[in-house]
């Protein structure tokens, strides 16, 4: 398979132009298969990436690079349930990833 997604890194470059991820706690809503997560996670202190589709999260976990396993947590959960179970003022950056 020779699929190439965003070969010129337009998406992460646009993301990094708007926010400094270094040492930040990040929530990504609608992470899908982790396509975008991999592009910024190595800069963040911790990433919680959620998606309501179980298959997408399974694929994201399968494809997780080893060096990110200590800082990225993928969760199969909808945002409403996640928000109800979360404490306020937890995240430095929240990303709505093609999901609003």
């Amino acid at each position, binding site marked *: 398979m020779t699929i190439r997604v965003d070969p010129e890194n337009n998406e992460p470059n646009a993301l990094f132009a708007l926010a400094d991820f270094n040492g930040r706690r990040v929530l990504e809503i609608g992470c899908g298969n982790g396509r975008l997560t991999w592009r910024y996670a190595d800069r963040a202190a911790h990433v919680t990436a959620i998606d309501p589709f179980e298959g997408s999260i399974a694929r994201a976990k399968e494809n997780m690079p080893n060096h990110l396993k200590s800082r990225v947590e993928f969760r199969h959960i909808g945002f409403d349930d996640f*928000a109800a179970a979360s404490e306020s003022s937890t995240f430095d950056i929240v990303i709505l990833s093609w999901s609003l």
Partner: protein
Amino acid sequence: MVHALEDINQLLKPDGCLIDIHPIREAPFIKVFRGSDLLSVESDPGYDYDEGIQHAEAALAEVLHRGSYRVERENEFELVTSASSAPELQDYWEQYGAFDDTPKDEAMIVRKNEVYTRADEIMQNASGAEISCHERARITRLEPNVRE
């Protein structure tokens, strides 16, 4: 959506930010290139985001009106996904959306298949050609206003 944006406001630290990425209201383009030569370009008839984008933009406008957030900066970028064959690109998108169980418009699927079939025919006669999907998106940094 407004409720979700208000919940996000609560989850953010006071000096945090929300980054919203969503496609603009314009169908992606399916292009076939050989080297730098553009052999064909068609808009993707499978594009069915329009209603969703309208709701998203209305929700953002509402929370800005309420004063929950302010727009700090925004920009646009192009997301390109390319493949060495039309079936390969089509398979990729089908797998990518396989977990989305919202109803699909059958007529739209037929039109989409026709676009990929035409692209495939062009590529059969153009050795080394590549197919790509070009989708534009808006990225916005919103900062929460001080909560009471």
